[in-house]
C-alpha cells in the first residue's frame, strides 16, 4: 500500500514537473540581452549549464534588446525573469515574427518595436522548451 502511494505521488510529481505552462511577456534578442547582463560580448561567454538560468530582467535590456526580424536567438521577459527559448522555440519565434504584419494607426510614426508573445512550453532551468508561440 505504502509503495503504491509512493509511486502515485512520484508519478504526480513528475507529471507536474513536465507540465506545459503559458508564459506571456516581451520577446527579446537573447544575444543582446545576455550582453547587457554580462557586459561582455556573447561570443566570449562560456556555454555552461548555468548560462540557461532565468535571470532577473533589467530595464536596460528591455529597452535595447527588442526582438526583430533579424533575431535568431530569442528570450522572453515574463514575470520579472528572462527566459531563453530552446532551439525549436527559436525557429518558431523567427518564423512567427517574419510571418506577420500590422496596420499602423499613424503611418507617419514609427511603430512600436515591442513584440508581446505568449509562449506555451516547459521551463527547465530558465530555458523554455517551446510547444507553441503566439505573437500579438
Amino acid at each position, binding site marked *: 500500500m505504502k509503495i503504491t502511494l509512493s509511486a502515485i505521488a512520484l508519478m504526480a510529481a513528475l507529471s507536474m514537473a513536465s507540465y506545459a505552462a503559458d508564459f506571456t511577456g516581451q520577446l527579446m534578442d537573447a544575444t543582446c540581452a545576455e550582453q547587457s547582463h554580462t557586459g561582455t560580448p556573447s561570443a566570449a561567454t562560456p556555454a555552461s549549464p548555468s548560462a540557461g538560468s532565468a535571470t532577473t530582467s533589467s530595464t536596460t535590456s528591455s529597452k535595447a534588446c527588442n526582438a526583430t*526580424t533579424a533575431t535568431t536567438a530569442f528570450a522572453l521577459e515574463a514575470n520579472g525573469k528572462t527566459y531563453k527559448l530552446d532551439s525549436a522555440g527559436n525557429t518558431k519565434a523567427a518564423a512567427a515574427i517574419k*510571418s506577420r504584419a*500590422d*496596420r*499602423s494607426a499613424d*503611418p507617419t510614426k514609427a*511603430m512600436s518595436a515591442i513584440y508581446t508573445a505568449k509562449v506555451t512550453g516547459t521551463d527547465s532551468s530558465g530555458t523554455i522548451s517551446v510547444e507553441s508561440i503566439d505573437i500579438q
Partner: protein
Amino acid sequence: MTVPHLPRLSLLFSALLLLAGACGAHAEQTAEDRQSLANRYVHEVLPYWQHRLALDDWDIHILLSRPEDLRPGTLGNIHWDRDKKAATIRVMDSTGYHADLAAMLKDMQVTVVHELVHLELASLPVAEADRSNQEFAIDHLTDALLASGSRSVADPPALSR
C-alpha cells in the same frame, strides 16, 4: 466560380446602414449592434478582396480584436503560414472606434485590404530597415485599390489612343 459581391454595393449593408441611420434618429446604437454589424461587414468584404487580389487559394480567417489585444498604435494585423497557405486577419473591433458607423466600417475595410496586400508580398524578403518603406507603399496600394473598388474586374478602363 462565383465572384463575390462588391461590398460597396452590398444590398445587405446598404439596408443595414439605412436602418442603422434611421434607428439612430430615435435611439443610440448599442455597442452590441455596432459590433455585430462590424463582424458581419468584415466577413463580407474579405472574400471580395481576397478574390480581387487573386488569393483564393489561401484559407483566410478574419476576426475582430479588442484594441488591447493588438500591438500599441495599430488597427489590425495579419499572421500567415506560407506552407499551409493559411492566414488570420485581426481587425480592431468597434470598441476602438469613436467614429460613426459608416466611417468605422470603411476603415475596417481599409485594414482588410491593407493586410491582404501584405499577404501578396509575403514571399518577398523584407529587411527590418525597409519595413517602414514597405508600410508606406502598402498604404498607397491600399488607397489605390479601394479607389478602384467600384470598377468591375471584367470592365477595365478603355485604352487611350
